Each structure stands twice: as structure tokens, then as C-alpha cells.
């Protein structure tokens, strides 16, 4: 078994009920495993939700986590998307303070990361960037010196490619 810790993205199909997320989170938290990112919404079947979460663990630990999660009565399936060909995206909203001096630089960054301005309001604007986690990290690094007012990230969403 691989001992090295790396990011694993788990995709769960669960019953869309009030305390299912607490059960899943408690199953990890109660054993001391941190959830790095988390994304939940109903599927095409409104009775079923998809939870996509990521953990940074070695392979043996991830296998244990999968086995513990699948024991939950409200969980229908668990798959480790990091083992498959997967499309992964994350979205970020970031609010920038606008000055005469930073506008051009911000525009350049938006262009580089294929983002867009969602709203502009006098001296500030909200930018949306959807990309890989790595690119979002890079975008934040570039925007930081220009004055980030606040930001929010969705966490990873992922979907396996079909052959």
C-alpha cells in the first residue's frame, strides 16, 4: 500500500435527508480525518444527493474511510474519483477593491484565468473564476497583492469521464 499522503476525491450518492451530511462528516471527523473540501447538491433524482469531498490521506486510510462511509444506511455508493479519469473544477468568487492603479492588472488576471466580472459597484467588483484547484490557487496568489477584499471557493466538483 502506498504510504504517501495525497488528495483523494470521494464521490458519494446519499439519501437527500436532513442529517445525512452530519453522518458522513461525523464518520470522518470522529476518526480524526479532516475534510478538505466539500460540495453537495441534489442529483437528477431529488431524493438522492451527491456529496463530493476531498481528503488528504494515504491510500490505506482512504480505503478505510470508504469502508466506514459505505456502512452508513443512507449512503448508496462511494467512489474514489482520483483513481479514475476525472474532470475536476472549482469555482471562486472574489471581491476586489478597485483603484485606478490596479484595474489593468486585475483585468489581465481575469483574462489569463478566463474569469469574468460578475458585478461592479463603484470602488469594488466581484470576479468569478472557474478552473482547476491549482489554477484557482495561482489566481489567488496573483490577485493578493492587488487587494482582495473577500473571497469564497466552492471546493472541488468532479465527474468521471465516460469512455
Amino acid at each position: 500500500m502506498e504510504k504517501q499522503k495525497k488528495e483523494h476525491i470521494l464521490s458519494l450518492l446519499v439519501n437527500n435527508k436532513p442529517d445525512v451530511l452530519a453522518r458522513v462528516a461525523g464518520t470522518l471527523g470522529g476518526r480524526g480525518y479532516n475534510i478538505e473540501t466539500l460540495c453537495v447538491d441534489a442529483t437528477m433524482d431529488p431524493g438522492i444527493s451527491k456529496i463530493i469531498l476531498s481528503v488528504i490521506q494515504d491510500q490505506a486510510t482512504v480505503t478505510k474511510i470508504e469502508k466506514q462511509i459505505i456502512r452508513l444506511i443512507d449512503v448508496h455508493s462511494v467512489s474514489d474519483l482520483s483513481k479514475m479519469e476525472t474532470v475536476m473544477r472549482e469555482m471562486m468568487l472574489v471581491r476586489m477593491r478597485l483603484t485606478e492603479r490596479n484595474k489593468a492588472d486585475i483585468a489581465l488576471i481575469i483574462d489569463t484565468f478566463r474569469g469574468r466580472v460578475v458585478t461592479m459597484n463603484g470602488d469594488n467588483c466581484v470576479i468569478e473564476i472557474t478552473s482547476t484547484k491549482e489554477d484557482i490557487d495561482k489566481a489567488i496568489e496573483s490577485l493578493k497583492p492587488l487587494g482582495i477584499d473577500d473571497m469564497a471557493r466552492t471546493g472541488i466538483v468532479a465527474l468521471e469521464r465516460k469512455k
Partner: protein
Amino acid sequence: MFSLKLKGSQIFIKALEQEGIDILFGYPGGVLLDIYDELHRSGLKHILVRHEQGAVHAADGYARASGKVGVTLVTSGPGATNTVTGIANAHLDSIPIVVFTGQVPTPLIGTDAFQEADIIGITRPCTKHNFQVRRVEELAKTIQEAFYIARSGRPGPVLVDLPKDVMASTTDYEPLPPREKELNSVPKAASKKAFYVLDLINEAKRPLLLTGGGVILGKASEELREMARRTKIPVTSTLMGLGAFPGTDPLWLGMPGMHGTYYANMALTHCDLLIAIGCRFDDRVTGKLDTFASKAKIVHVDVDASSINKNVMVDVPIVQDCKTALQSFNQLLAEQNFSVGDEQRKAWFDQIAEWRTNVPLTYCNSDAVIKPQFVIETLYRLTKGRAIIATEVGQNQMWTAQFYPFDEPNTLLSSGGLGTMGYGFPAAIGAQLAFPDRLVVDIAGDGSIQMNIQELATAVQYNIPVKIAILNNGFLGMVRQWQELFYEKRYSHTDMTFAPDFVKVAEAYGLMGLRAEKPGDVEAVLRKGLAHPGPVVMDFKVAREECVYPMVRPGGPINEMALGREMAN
């Protein structure tokens, strides 16, 4: 077919009847009045306990002894929170129970109403599953689901929270058809592995079976006996599995682990094939993991995939219930006309016999002071090993496991995983109600018995003839033992000399109390107590600083055992 209009409380009773439940352990309260009113009218037997923890342990003891699902009914708030230890206890030992808790009316949930507790949130990590019934239409279905989840796959406790208004409202009721499909249905591929296991047995020179509570829960004792005898593989079992294989069989090695027999621990350390069935490799069994069965190929059968490769990495995982796995294996043995020559096992049996002769399981008896082991040995002799035995937790529990060999499954009720002091007595009450004609004995310590002593009133009220044998050493004995061995005898807060006179306590509750102070009294007290038709408390004043040996240091390798006081220091 026309349907009936019924109240939630009536549907509750009907749903229990449909599950074949005939007894529940409970304690009423404000939000349960509708249900208790229906109970009054129904044919269900209800045992009024004196504390809700006792109700859960009694349901648990009933389940362990009978193999059926135990049921508890308690009120909201403190009634519900008092069940938590009992639920966690059943959870760690995978015992099928359903706990019904009352809840404040749905409009009041979340308002910090009187006697409100978020019991769903509180018990989420210690139940197999829990439900809150928000609409009366869901009630029958939820109760059916709860029992199904409790008993299927790896069993466990399920809690169902019942808001008061749901019990009071009405709906159309039709009996549900019984559930068919069982959870965790058996993967077919697993039986193919039986061939591989057979090859391993053929190649092995020093094979060993390690069995656990899963064999008892899976009702697979017969299959285990057939397999062990046919393959002539010696057997050791965790505390939870005692009785699945006869404690008097020549292949039996006793319990392994921290207080296991020398020969079981040596066999585990030196075996070259370990077939583990329905056990989960608890730290009390394995000791230091690096040296546990390190020379062996390990086969692990368990119904719960999450038990496999959790603590011990195994070579052949088989995710299957014990009964199915053993059945398919025995079938293969029969088809292959499998037999083992005496010669093939001789070296291994000789080695085990040598270990057994050199270091038998024993203790130093005394003429002056009652040795706790002597009480248990005498109890074994007088009951011919046929009693149902409940234990509390600590020294009393380990001495029972060592000196009362169990020949039948479901006859030892002991809190293995959680180690709950106060478990044994209410569990014995539950077992006695499952088997009114059998002899049920709780082997207790003076510390443990005080943790649920209020249930003496329950035993007297319903004339439940449980016999309690208190091994009274005036100490929290096991903790004191650790203080002696690892903390230079600094007995910090383990002296229990300040205790009530247990004979007088028994008499105050209205049952028989007996006391033995000298070794010569032991048999007479036991004879009198066991022959008495009602409940009895027997107080044995035993050697104060007796230790449980052998003992493996916590975290140490199991082949390094202290065998007596001299070697421990």
C-alpha cells in the same frame, strides 16, 4: 381490504407485535403517555426498570442470550440521554437492539423545550442507525426498517425517536408485508476463496482458528465445531466469542490476549496459518501489532468489510457472514473427503501440549482467605457449567473468562468492547426473562454492582431469580492491579472499602442476601443461593489484592506475559 384509522401510539404497538416482540424494558415519562396508555391495554410484557441505562442493558442481555432483538422504551430528554452508555455498549459489541425514545412534539423540537434532547445528534456515532419519525404515516415503515437494520448484516443498536404529537395523531393503517431482501447479501465470489483456504490448510504445519463474537451473532457455532474438528485445527476465541466452541474440547486453547492463556498467546505468535472468523482484532487481543501472528498467513472472515485490514493486514479477506462462510467451507471439506492424519498435526499438538503443561492456567488457592478464582471454579462445579453467566467489567470479568469454561454460545454476557461497569446485572435480568427456567448468574465486583444496583427493585418486583455473586475485594480491582504493576502501588482513588453492607442492601430491597467470609463458606453460600427460587445477592469477601494473570503489558507483544506477581515487577 379496508384500512383502519389508528393513532400513532396504536400503530407503535401493532408494529412491535408484527416484529414478534413480546417484551420490552422501559421507563415512562410525559411524552410517552399515549404509548403507555396503549401498553396498558396490550398483551406486550413491559418490565419497569429503575434507570434507563438498566433498560438498555437488559434489552442487550435479552438479545445476547436469545439471539433475538431486544427492545427499550424510554422518555425524552434525560430518559433518552440515560440510554447512551447502553447504546454505545451494544454498538461496540454489535448487539441487535431497538431503542425507542420519546421526543417533545414536533413544533417544539429545537426550542429547548422541557425535557428536550437532540438524541438523534447525540447517538449518531454510537448507533448503527437512528431515525426521528416526523409524520405518523412513516411510523410503521420506520419501525420495520429499524428492526431490520438492527438484526441484519453486522447487527447493532438502532434508535427511533418518537415525537409526542406523532404518537397522538391518526392515520390509515395496514399491516406491512414482511421485508424480504436482507442487507449485505452474500457475494457469491467469496465461496471460491474456500478452495484457496483449503490449500492453505493443507500446506500449514501450525494452523490456528481465532473466533469472535461474529460466530455467536451469526449463529454459526455448529458450523465452527464441524470445521474445527474435521480439520483438527486448535481454537482460541476472543471474550466475545466464548462458548461458540466448547471450552472443554481438547482442541480448545482458552482466550488469547492481555489476560489470555499462555498457550493461546504462544499459539497465536507461532502459528503459520491463522483463520480468523467473526472477530475484529481488538487491541486487547492482538497486543503489539508488529509481532501479532507475524509468522502466519491470515485468513479473515467478517460480515463487515470495514473490519478487514483495519488493525491487522490479512492475506485472504472474506466478506461474508460466518455461517455462510463456514457452511460453504464445510461443504467443500465434505466434497473433497477432507481428512487430516494424526501425524500431520503431531508436532503442532505436541508443542501446544508442552506450552499447556509448562504454564497452565492456574492460581494459588488459600485456606485463609477466599480467592476470587476459587469462587468461580466452585460456581462452575455446582452449575456443571450450564448456567448463563453475565459479568461486570474488570477482574471479575477476566476471571470468569479464565475459570468458567463455556460450552454453549449465548451463555456468556459480557461487555467486551466498551467495558461498561454496571452492565452485568441488568443484562442478567434480560437473559433471565428470555430463559425463565435457566439459572442466570451475574459475576460482579463490588465496584461494578454499585453502578446499577437500583435494578434490585426490578428483580424483586417481577421475581426475576437472578443470582448475583459479588467478588468483593474492597477495590476497583483491575485499576488497582494496574496501579500496583505500573504506578508503584499508589492506589489513587481505587479503595472502595467505603461500601454498603450488600447483604443488608439485598434485604432492604426485599431479596435474599448471603455472605461468605472464609473459603469454607463458599460452597455452602453458593449452594444455598443457587437453590433459592428468587433473586439473591451473594457477597464473597475475597483476597483484596489478587491480580489477574497471565498479563500482557498494554501495547506489549502477547508472547511476553507476566505469569505472576514476581514476574510482573
